[in-house]
């Protein structure tokens, strides 16, 4: 079977730290895989390796069967990325930022379509033509979501996407992930939020010191069991 996201013996050695120790991971289309772990456990390094922002020391990452390191441009056609803190061009409006990033991704949308994407991402209508410099973090995050959705990506990479969002915005974000997942989008999300991982994840993986030490389907755990499991590994 071809996995949409796959890591084979993925290893990353920084000059002063071994960040990832031979990660093996397979994610299927429509799956939401949540990576849990403390700071420095290797979650962001994994995301960066899939993005092609850093080169692996050994092993390989694949997206849609294409090796990331040797095809950095091609794999970006398949993926969308939402960082912890979405930063946009402050002097452009929300709709202008969306138009820019969509056009870079190869999509040319009408103004009506752009407004629809922003509305579906939950951005208030009154904000779409305001400069992004006046936006809150949550509003920027919603533009980031619109950028990701408008790209029609097969894979969504998320690095602490709900960090700093209010509960309502987090809930809307979870709804969106469920929707995308049902449409066949695979999601790899690095998070500290056990509740959100249980709520939207199909599987959770626990990382410790660069190793994926446990992987469980969320359906087999309730919230307390997930918390206990997590704490066990963090001790």
């Amino acid at each position: 079977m071809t996995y949409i996201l796959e890591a084979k013996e993925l290893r990353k050695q920084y000059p002063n730290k071994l960040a990832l120790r031979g990660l093996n991971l397979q994610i299927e289309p429509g799956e939401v895989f949540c990576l849990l772990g403390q700071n420095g456990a290797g979650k962001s390094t994994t995301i960066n390796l899939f993005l092609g922002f850093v080169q692996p020391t050994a092993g390989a990452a694949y997206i849609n069967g294409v090796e990331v390191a040797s095809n950095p441009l091609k794999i970006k056609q398949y993926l969308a990325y939402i960082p912890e803190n979405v930063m946009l061009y402050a002097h452009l409006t929300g709709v202008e930022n969306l138009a820019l990033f969509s056009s870079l991704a190869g999509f040319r949308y009408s103004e009506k379509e752009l407004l629809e994407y922003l509305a579906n991402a939950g951005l208030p209508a009154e904000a779409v033509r305001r400069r992004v410099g006046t936006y809150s973090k949550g509003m920027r995050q919603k533009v980031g979501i619109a950028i990701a959705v408008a790209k029609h990506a097969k894979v969504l990479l998320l690095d602490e996407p709900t960090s700093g969002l209010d509960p309502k915005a987090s809930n809307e974000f979870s709804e969106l992930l469920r929707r995308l997942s049902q449409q066949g989008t695979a999601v790899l999300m690095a998070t500290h939020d056990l509740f959100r991982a249980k709520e939207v994840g199909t599987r959770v993986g626990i990382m410790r010191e660069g190793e994926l030490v446990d992987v469980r389907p969320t359906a087999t755990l309730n919230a307390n069991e997930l918390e206990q499991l997590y704490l066990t590994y963090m001790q």
Partner: protein
Amino acid sequence: MRTFWILVRYEWRHFRAAKGLVLLTGLVLLVGLYGIYYGTTEIERQRQHLATLPTLAHHNVEELKKKFPGPADAGDIGYYHTTFAVHHPTEWASLALGQRDVNPYYVKLRLLGLQGQLYASENVNPTKVLSGNFDLAFVLVYLFPLLIIALSFNLLSSEKEQGILVLLLAQPVRPGVVVAAKLTLRLLLVLGLALLLSAVAVAWARVPLDGRVGVWVALVVLYCLFWFGVVAIVTALQRNSAFNAVALVGAWLVLVVLLPGLLNVYVDATRPVPQGLELTIKQREEIHGGWDKPKSETMNRFFALYPQWRDTATIRERFVWRWYYAFQHLGDESVRPLVAAYTDGLRQRFALVERLAWVSPAVNAQVSLAALAGTDLPTHLAFQQSATRYHDALRAFYYPYLFRKVAFTHDDYAKEPTHTFTSTSELGTATSGLWKLLVSVGVVWATGLLLLQVRPLNPR
């Protein structure tokens, strides 16, 4: 290519949104226009001054005709009659004043010893000479690199520091295309401004549209490309904006201020020239000493140089003009080796500067632009040579009157030789500078591109 132009278009929007940069670019445009105004006004002032000289010479003749109503001794006329050796500028001089502010653009001549007159020029405000001229060449060579630095020091670091670069590079866009688009927009802005100013200057100064316009444009474009190459190197290091700003301003200080200063010190030390003052004093001493020397000794030395006048009558009077002009000329002859050493020394200095100009593209550009405008040192030395030849012609004109004791009539004023010298562009120097700039551009761009290649862009 589509992605590249999308990025260029948005870069333009980012630039328009950065009010400080728009203001700075506008300021450089105004400063450039002032440079053109200054250069054109200065050359026009010099032209007007040169245009008044024939009238002054005419007035002088009219006064002499009143003073000597009948046939006169040519010695009196040679002593009182003032004429001028004039150095007309090219139209290009308005764009690069070069040495036209420090060296005299005309020389007032009488039949006396030449050397004392050649270096006698009007007093100028030394503070003004120190600060130099504010022409278009100055704006392009000294201020444009600062504009390039201000526009480009945070080429990538700004978006990296703001966190936008991660989102940008998560799109199917080559990092090289992002850098290229950013550089292209800035390059278009800077070159557009430089070429606009050059076009205004060419039109304002009524510069003839020949091949030299192409050389000027090539020099300006290459000089700007050199600084963008420096920006590419610093950008490739992927450090923060503060580091980039310090590194680029440091490069400007080294290449535009420090190295030219050191080059000047080195050239002065390795190519010493006799002091002009020493030359003038020696010539004066020789001339003043002429009064006390036996006339026969003076005349024999003179006849050795001009045997054609040897058969003139032996001087028995206390004063005769031909003796006076003979020891004036011997004064010039006495400093001939010093004059040769002085001019050769200056030529050697210039040749050394030209040879070493590759160490600083700013020096190279300055030398090349001045050469193109005909305002450099070799042009001034050529004018001095021309003035010397004119003085020789004046002496050759007056000597028959003096030695054959022919009376000087009013009609003879019109027969007196006149002088004119117009600068020409030193295309050899300018094109040599062009090649050196091309090599400098090649070196910085190759280094920058190599660094960008071996150091993959890290958006975090």
